[in-house]
């Protein structure tokens, strides 16, 4: 079981993981606190985390536009690895996905966590216990797993 957490002031559900862009020439990566979002069709690397991983945006290759409650967002889509850790069973799970990387704007900089969307969540049993402020993920299928 992967243990998530709830933010103190935001109340948002988070889970920690490692996001890497293996097809980017610089092979950048960063550890991220992902907002767990079952409404998101794909995972998102937000600008604050893109800066943390020192992403060279000039080398992104696949433009994409997405639609959210705030309207359209432009950016890029890139092949990515997201690794989550199950501390209880001492396992690492690697999810191969295509992550959306929105352009950096002042508003986007305020979003404090990248997003874990259904490209990953479709492969887990997600338990969200509001009263207990608890979030857990049980991986049901994953292409790659490793002993931690």
């Amino acid at each position: 079981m992967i243990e998530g957490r709830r933010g103190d002031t935001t109340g948002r559900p988070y889970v920690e993981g490692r996001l890497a862009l293996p097809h980017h020439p610089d092979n950048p990566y960063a550890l991220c606190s992902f907002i767990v979002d079952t409404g998101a069709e794909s995972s998102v690397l937000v600008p604050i985390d893109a800066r943390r991983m020192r992403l060279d945006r000039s080398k992104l290759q696949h433009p994409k536009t997405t639609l959210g409650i705030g309207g359209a967002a432009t950016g890029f889509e890139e092949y990515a690895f997201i690794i989550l850790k199950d501390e209880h069973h001492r396992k690492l799970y690697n999810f191969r996905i295509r992550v959306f990387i929105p352009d950096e704007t002042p508003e986007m900089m305020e979003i404090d966590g990248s997003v874990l969307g259904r490209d990953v969540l479709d492969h887990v049993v997600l338990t969200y216990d509001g009263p207990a402020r608890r979030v857990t993920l049980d991986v049901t299928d994953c292409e790659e797993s490793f002993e931690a």
Partner: protein
Amino acid sequence: MREISHELTTFRSSAMLLSQTSPRLIDDYNGRWVAVLDGRVLLEAADPDDLFARMAEANIDSRYALVRHIQSNQRSLIL
């Protein structure tokens, strides 16, 4: 993979600082941008550009640090 496993365990421990209710970061850093590493706030700044500049000056590897804007009047986030 062993190294990644260790990194994730350490990072999660740091992230728990943002979930704890006592003491609360909001009490000391309201309105500030903070960098959290190894379970404590290492740097703070008024804006993200300044925070990233300070992290670079201090040779802090931002890939392993949490960067957050601590604020009591959070704007509603509807993704």
